[in-house]
């Protein structure tokens, strides 16, 4: 079954190559793109079944034994994230097919489809990478295509934001490369499983320094306060569907890597107070920022920053309960954040507006969109019975159960953060949906560039994602037990080490 392991990123990469060849044929691309993305999802689902049956799967590419070759590892955490992220990527791809690749003001299918499929491959490779250098390459594959997508249909503003985004990402990549070099100098390996056996022998100070370096590297990529400044400036400017993918996946890939590296290579007995404080700061600043902004996309971007704090909170506790909460939160947030941005794309398609002070009366304009917005908005605020409630409940229970004073305090902050999120969402609801349209607002332009089939496809994709969010809540039981398994695998790390180091010699 090991041949399955590379497929989630090989299939989209193959699709990207074919899309490059077929770049002048829009109709082919519209079939090829979703097909390649769907292939990736199917491979991930098969991998999930295989991991459920056989436990952790490891593959040594090229046949070189573990610490030397390129290792790909699929464990419970990575396959779960592969399936969820693949589904979201496929959904947004279908949304793009409905909308037209370049949005309303340009058509660049020849650029969009290859770049998007490469991004898909990069995200999948991040989840599968079994050594630090391969993780670096996966991030570069993902980010290089994201630079292209960010500046798709360039306007002056988009190029400005794209420049900020690119330079910040590159800085963190350089830091990543440097940390990698330092790790190799200290431990003599970059294979994660091998590192996890060698790093505990290093002096404590070296270990702390390396751990903090990786926290900074993934903190920049994952927008943890105070390294979050670039995100709300750059994300909202890209085409909305692209922002949806970025918000749903790029920061989560960084959070995943942080969880993987910190639990496997730098395991701790107790919670980390540095991370707890950072998590609290991230929650407060992100959700407060969401309350001050007027543009819907910026509100959502700040919400994203705030909710990265919740995942960091789960990781900072460094126990099975906390990590279970973090994993549940990752799954919930990937889906719900993508849904929110796709809904806002529908709003934009309907009214041509994203500014709250110019929006209004959306309830009477389209009840359908209102329902589509309402459900993920409640979910992201954590109102029962949505998936956000399930994930937050798991986190709060873990925070209270851990028993330290700081963890109690951060749990309190997290509760306040949920209330602030609810306030931000109610603000959008009151200003954008409930009040009558402000005087002097121009009539919504009938967008002629959308075909009727396209609009229907976009609406059904968003509906499917909303339903998927509800499904996460409905399947909370099995999902939580899967996450708990994944979390205890993370905490012990034995299954991972065994699959990589002993399995490779077979």
């Amino acid at each position, binding site marked *: 079954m090991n041949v399955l392991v590379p497929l989630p990123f090989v299939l989209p990469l193959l699709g990207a190559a074919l899309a490059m060849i077929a770049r002048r044929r829009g109709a082919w691309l519209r079939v090829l793109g979703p097909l390649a993305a769907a292939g990736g999802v199917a491979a991930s689902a098969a991998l999930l079944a295989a991991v459920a049956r056989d436990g952790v799967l490891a593959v040594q590419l090229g046949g070189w034994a573990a610490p030397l070759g390129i290792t790909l590892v699929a464990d419970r955490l990575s396959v779960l994230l592969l399936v969820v992220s693949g589904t979201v990527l496929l959904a947004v791809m279908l949304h793009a097919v409905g909308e037209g690749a370049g949005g309303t003001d340009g058509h660049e299918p020849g650029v969009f489809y290859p770049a998007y499929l490469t991004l898909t491959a990069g995200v999948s490779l991040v989840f599968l990478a079994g050594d630090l250098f391969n993780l670096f390459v996966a991030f570069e594959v993902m980010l290089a295509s994201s*630079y292209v997508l960010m500046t798709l249909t360039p306007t002056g503003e988009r190029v400005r934001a794209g420049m900020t985004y690119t330079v910040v990402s590159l800085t963190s990549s350089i830091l990543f490369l440097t940390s990698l070099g330092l790790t190799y100098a200290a431990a003599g390996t970059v294979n994660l499983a091998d590192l996890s056996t060698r790093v505990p022998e290093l002096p404590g100070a070296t270990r702390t320094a390396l751990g903090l370096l990786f926290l900074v590297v993934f903190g920049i990529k994952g927008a943890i306060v105070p390294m979050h400044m670039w995100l709300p400036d750059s994300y909202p400017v890209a085409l909305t569907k692209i922002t949806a993918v970025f918000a749903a996946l790029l920061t989560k890939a960084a959070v995943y890597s942080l969880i993987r590296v910190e639990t496997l290579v730098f395991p701790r007995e107790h919670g980390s107070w540095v991370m707890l404080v950072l998590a609290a700061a991230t929650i407060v600043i992100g959700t407060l920022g969401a309350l001050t902004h007027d543009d819907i996309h910026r509100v959502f971007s700040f919400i994203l920053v705030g909710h990265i704090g919740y995942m960091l909170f789960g990781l900072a506790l460094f126990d099975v309960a906390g990590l279970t909460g973090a994993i549940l939160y990752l799954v919930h947030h990937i889906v719900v954040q993508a849904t929110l941005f796709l809904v806002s794309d529908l709003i934009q398609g309907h009214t041509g507006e994203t500014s709250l002070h110019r929006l209004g009366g959306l309830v009477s304009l389209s009840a359908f969109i209102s329902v589509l917005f309402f459900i993920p908005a409640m979910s992201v605020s954590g109102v029962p019975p949505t998936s956000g409630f399930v994930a937050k409940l798991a986190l709060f229970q873990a925070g209270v159960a851990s028993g330290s004073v700081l963890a109690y305090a951060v749990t309190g902050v997290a509760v306040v953060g949920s209330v602030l999120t609810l306030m931000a969402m109610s603000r959008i609801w009151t200003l954008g949906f409930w009040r009558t349209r402000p005087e002097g607002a121009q009539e919504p332009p009938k967008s002629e560039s959308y075909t009727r089939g396209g609009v229907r496809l976009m609406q059904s994709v968003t509906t499917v994602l909303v339903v998927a969010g509800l499904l996460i809540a409905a399947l909370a039981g099995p999902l939580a037990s899967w996450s708990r398994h994944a979390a205890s695998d993370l905490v012990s790390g034995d299954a991972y080490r065994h699959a990589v180091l002993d399995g490779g010699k077979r």
Partner: protein
Amino acid sequence: MTGPGLVLVVVVAVLFAAGFDLLMQRSLIRIVIGFSLLGHGANLVLLLAGGAAGTPPLLGAKGPGAAVDPFPQAMVLTAIVITFGVTAFLLALAYRSRRLRGGDEVRDDVEDRRICAERHRPGETPRATPLEQENPGPEDGA
């Protein structure tokens, strides 16, 4: 294994210092140059991680000292390719920024300026800031 030469360590320090200094400038071309310096610095760190110089790691090669560790060199090669490609992209972006916005300076974010201005005029509807009037239509990109 003897330690790496002091010269290379100093070179790495200088490359990082100069690189980060250039990265904080407003001119895009300086940022690009700063990024390439940082890339060189990081690659040198990787190279240093392999230990002191020695015999080429080839079967049958003869020379002074033990064979060097080929692993970091393989990683450096990959990293060089990546930084090269990304530098080319940055240059293209800087060129496009010059074409579209008529300058190579990084501008402030308009939305931030607007919110800042709004705070000083409570109760009024948000208006265009001077910066927004200078550059008509930047918000249309959203």
